[in-house]
């Protein structure tokens, strides 16, 4: 079975380590904040100028001056700090953020990512995505493995305008967790019940399948847990 959005978020959160400063993109990456493992303390960076983002506010706490990069009202966690956009991107470009998680339309086996524009169709802009992929060493891309029509989004060469070149080393899809090394996707884990054959068939870029490819595991009581 392909992973649900919640399971994707939960698998992302398994990568969180105690003391990490993390930037989460809009969508599934943001959901990962709901599954921070027990005993792990992370601080979420929102590129509009907040380090230490808290949950959504209670109705009476809503403050128009306190939003996240998705323009949603939020709160501040204990130990939060506030700063300008220039300071925020100094953090990002200076490599001070430990982990960046963001979505994409396509990635390829050279580590290229396309996530911000579909010419003629969707031209909204890159926001902070280009800075995030250029500035972070540790990036996880979350995406569906293939389109609704079964076309692979893990390619040998991205077809859409690039957000970043040669900067992606890890991809989590609804079917698999893959690393990108030396011009190949390396299959690291598969979603529970998804066969290697299915992943091979839906991966257009060069794919290396190690002898052992374990299924992802989810903690009991969580989505996908036993």
């Amino acid at each position: 079975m392909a992973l649900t959005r919640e399971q994707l978020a939960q698998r992302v959160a398994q990568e969180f380590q105690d003391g990490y400063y993390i930037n989460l993109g809009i969508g599934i990456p943001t959901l990962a904040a709901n599954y921070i493992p027990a005993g792990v303390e992370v601080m979420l960076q929102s590129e509009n100028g907040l380090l230490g983002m808290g949950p959504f506010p209670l109705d009476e706490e809503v403050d128009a001056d306190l939003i996240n990069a998705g323009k949603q009202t939020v709160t501040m966690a204990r130990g939060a700090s506030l700063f300008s956009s220039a300071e925020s991107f100094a953090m990002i470009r200076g490599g001070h953020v430990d982990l960046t998680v963001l979505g994409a339309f396509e990635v390829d086996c050279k580590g290229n990512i396309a996530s911000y524009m579909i010419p003629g169709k969707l031209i909204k802009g890159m926001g902070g995505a280009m800075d995030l992929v250029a500035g972070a060493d540790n990036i996880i891309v979350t995406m569906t493995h293939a389109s609704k029509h079964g076309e692979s989004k893990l390619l040998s060469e991205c077809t859409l305008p690039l957000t970043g070149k040669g900067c992606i080393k890890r991809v989590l899809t609804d079917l698999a967790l893959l690393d990108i090394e030396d011009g190949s996707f390396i299959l690291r884990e598969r979603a529970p019940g998804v066969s290697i054959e299915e992943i091979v068939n839906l991966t257009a870029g060069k794919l290396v399948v190690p002898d052992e490819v374990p299924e992802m595991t989810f903690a009991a009581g969580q989505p996908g847990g036993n």
Partner: protein
Amino acid sequence: MGRTSPASNNIQHRIQGAKMSGFDKVVGSYEEALAGLEDNMTVIAGGFGLCGIPENLIKEIRRKGTRGLTVVSNNCGTDKYGLGILLVDKQIKKMVASYVGENAMFESQMMSGELEVELTPQGTLAEKMRAGGAGIPAFYTATGYGTPVGEGKEVREFNGRQYILEEAIQGDFSIAKAWKADRYGNLVFRKTARNFNPMAVTAGRIAVVEVEEIVEVGSLDPDEIHLPGIYVNRLIQGTFEKNIEQRTVRSA
């Protein structure tokens, strides 16, 4: 290139009368705040989405009817609020922004070619403003290398990595919003409404700032001032709608 603008200061002195300190930046009306803004100028605006936008200064540009503007701002508001209201009468010729979604009028004017758009990565945009205000004509960044943003730009390698040369931005005017100021234009921002505002202020030849409260000089702790008044040319107190784009809440 100079930060000071004697012309605007003279205007202020006339407005304020002879008794005011030369450091007093307060003007009496929004009309005075944007005096001298003319067609085809470049305006740098602070704000992120609808958070921390100089909403009354934008409304004054709408009222003035200034046209052919190049506007530099992270976003272009929504159909109803913020910089989006300058699209109604097609006052913006060119928009430099990192993200322009959620605005149907923007999209239609962009698609029809009436509105020129230069998409700029958010961090590059912030740094272009910062550099513009700090006398740095250009800087190298890895952001955008190998993407459409890097096309036609100088590439240089440092320590084995490729960087592109990005040029600073300066505006004829900058418009920004802060929380509090003293009459000398020392600014304090509030929460994430700070965003692009400090850099926007520094990058404008005439920097106009609107605030929620103007306090007496000396009442702000110098340590709490986020941006010194040296960058500010005109200051005005306004009332703000503070619209929220996405009101997200949790239940107790």
